[in-house]
């Protein structure tokens, strides 16, 4: 039993920490969010230079040979700074799908571009009717000679406005919610028939609604086995859940520290409000919620490689924990900051908004509770 990080892992964390402290303070982030593009490609190049985009890939694929723990360390720091650049979308999701399901040719064609920071990816999986069910697909891919023709509509594709490439889930056979018959395709965002409408999200990111109208792709666009993609999607979205859990712990820790500090300095009724026992206990509860989330974040990151049912329990359980803890910590941080917590000016509300959106990504508490119960 050992919860300490290796020397390399500690170095990685310190490097990300110092880079973000220098280059990603809250006011800089505000400017990035408000800019026309909503992200800073220069940061992305820096991430590549620092090796962050290579960290979780195996050495055989040109990576630095890390994995879930490296992703966890990076994401925790990203959470502390509310980084908006699409690390989860590009490295964890697209990179993970390519690593897990890609042919050697596809890996060779695409992973170096990710590692070098040249290509940004987005994962178009959700549909308006499908809610959090990854198999509930109306989007279809029909065999067309050697290749396929895609038709359909994808909702809230995070990071898509910045992406050059999309990975798209589509039904190649079976009924709308069948587990079989789901396939993945690599699609150029600029391909004929792909149209996007971009918009900002409440946590300062960008997303697109993506329409596919008779989009023709070659046989080499199929990622993994035709009709057998659902288990791969579940596995890689669980990896994304682990990444989001780490991000959430970064957000929560920053909120807790800011709240304790505020309550020590804000005076009402002649004393710091942190002297009031009712607020002390509240902050203790916030602290415990955070610690429990850190534990789940470690746990899921260590269990991603285990059997499907173990992994699902770990990921679903973690998502429930961070969903509940994130909402509690976020809401109480705002409450204890009083009116100040409601302002756009202070970072507190921004952490709260991000934590709220993390609960929505890949299924909220209710969804993951059911998923856990079915796996347990």
């Amino acid at each position, binding site marked *: 039993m050992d919860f300490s990080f290796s020397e390399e892992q500690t170095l990685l964390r310190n490097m990300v920490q110092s880079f973000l402290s220098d280059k990603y303070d809250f006011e800089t982030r505000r400017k990035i969010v408000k800019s026309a593009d909503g992200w800073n490609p220069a940061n992305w190049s820096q991430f590549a230079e620092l090796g962050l985009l290579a960290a979780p890939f195996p050495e055989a694929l040109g990576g630095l040979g890390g994995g879930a723990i490296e992703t966890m360390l990076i994401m925790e720091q990203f959470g502390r700074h509310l980084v908006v650049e699409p690390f989860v979308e590009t490295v964890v999701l697209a990179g993970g799908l390519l690593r897990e399901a890609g042919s050697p040719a596809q890996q060779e064609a695409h992973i170096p571009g990710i590692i070098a920071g040249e290509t940004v990816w987005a994962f178009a999986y959700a549909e308006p009717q499908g809610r959090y069910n990854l198999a509930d697909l109306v989007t279809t891919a029909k065999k067309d000679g050697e290749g396929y023709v895609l038709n359909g509509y994808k909702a809230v594709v995070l990071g898509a406005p910045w992406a050059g490439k999309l990975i798209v889930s589509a039904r190649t056979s079976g009924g709308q*919610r069948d587990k079989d018959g789901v396939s993945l395709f690599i699609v150029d965002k600029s391909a004929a028939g792909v149209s996007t409408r971009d918009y900002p999200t*409440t946590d300062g990111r960008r*997303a697109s609604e993506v329409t596919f109208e008779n989009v023709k792709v070659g046989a080499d666009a199929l990622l993994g086995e035709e009709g057998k993609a659902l288990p791969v999607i579940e596995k890689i979205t669980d990896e994304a859940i682990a990444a989001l859990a780490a991000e959430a712990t970064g957000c929560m820790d920053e909120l807790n520290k800011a709240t304790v500090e505020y309550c020590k300095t804000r005076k009402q009724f002649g004393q710091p409000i942190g002297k009031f026992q009712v607020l002390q206990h509240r902050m203790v509860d916030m602290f415990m919620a955070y610690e429990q989330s850190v534990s789940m974040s470690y746990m899921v990151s260590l269990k991603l490689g285990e059997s499907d049912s173990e992994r699902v329990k770990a990921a679903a359980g973690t998502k429930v924990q961070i969903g509940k803890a994130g909402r509690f910590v976020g809401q109480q941080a705002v409450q204890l900051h009083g009116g100040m917590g409601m302002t756009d000016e202070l970072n507190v509300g921004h952490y709260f908004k991000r934590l709220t959106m993390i609960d929505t990504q890949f299924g909220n508490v209710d969804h993951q509770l059911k998923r856990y119960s079915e796996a347990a």
Partner: protein
Amino acid sequence: MDMSFSPEELAFRDEVRTFIAENYPAELRGIKTRAEMTKEQILLWHRVLYRKGWIVPHWPVEYGGTGWSITQRYIWNEECARAETTALLPFGLSMVGPVIYTFGNEEQKKRFLPGILSADDWWCQGYSEPGSGSDLASLRTRAVREGDHYVVNGSKTWTTLAQHADWIFCLVRTDPNAKQQEGISFLLIDMKTPGITVRPIITIEGGHEVNEVFLEDVRVPAENLIGEENKGWTYAKFLLGNERSGIAGVARSKKAIERLRAIAGAELVDGRPLITDGEFQRKISEVEIELTALEVTELRTLAAESKGRGPGPEASILKIRGTEIQQRITELVLEAVGNYGHVNTPLGEAANSNEFVPGPEYSNMAAQNFFNMRKASIYGGSNEIQHNIIAKMVLGL
């Protein structure tokens, strides 16, 4: 004990229902929050009710009240919520108006009440200060008497819609040497007076409702003092009691639950409406039961008030539970809309552009309403302070 309506009350219900249906301005239909309205739109419904003579059912008849019974007022609120009419601004009608007719002199009543009723004067509330939130009595905005004027210096914050206001009612410190609560006065200040600056505060959902108001050597005629100098805390508490009871929002929450059910009926989980999901159904039921209890609690409070007892410390129950319920409903709406909870609808200046907002209409503001509603447990005396009030005043702890 009787909780049912008499035939007369039912007839009254039909009358007001018809009135609302026929007179609610068409251009306001479908608008649910103030953030979506222009200044003129905010006042439209007010003006209709003013012309009808129904703008202040809760005021004494001699000042413009309707003379309705508690039950009739309850029915009126229910019907307004049912028709989803836009909320009336409370600053004149429920806050400073009652202070003026209760504690003001004849001159002040004549001068200020008509403008409140007609909405020719837009009022805002100068209570909180950067250093005085929950501990309101520690306020430091200073008013010094110079001849027949007070000279006011200080700043107020969280001032809702001050950007549109003609007048502000302010708590100011007139005696810095007295005990905190005993050196405060209640002043009415014309927002056009030189020395007043309004700075917007943007809140986390992107809206601009609240402001900071800076007062620098603002000269206020002494005749704008309400009641006696240094007795302002008495009037302030009277106003806060009214604010608390108005804050419960029971009828609006009922409508919001109805809307939540409709959303949960439209959203699908594995092809079936979310509303048929047992877990989600139970969450709606829980909040609805809490609301049912609060409704009867409010009616009991109103009944006690009609027997001459003012809103006592029990009003804090209405504030705490009422705001918790409002927050819970916005939380459930956000849960209900699923992935489209990510959507951010541009507000304020950006709202007029034709920016693309995806997803079903009901999801457009789901997250923003949830974020914005967090203010409810902070304003009007934070819910922690309301617990203190009940502990001290009701339980005697």
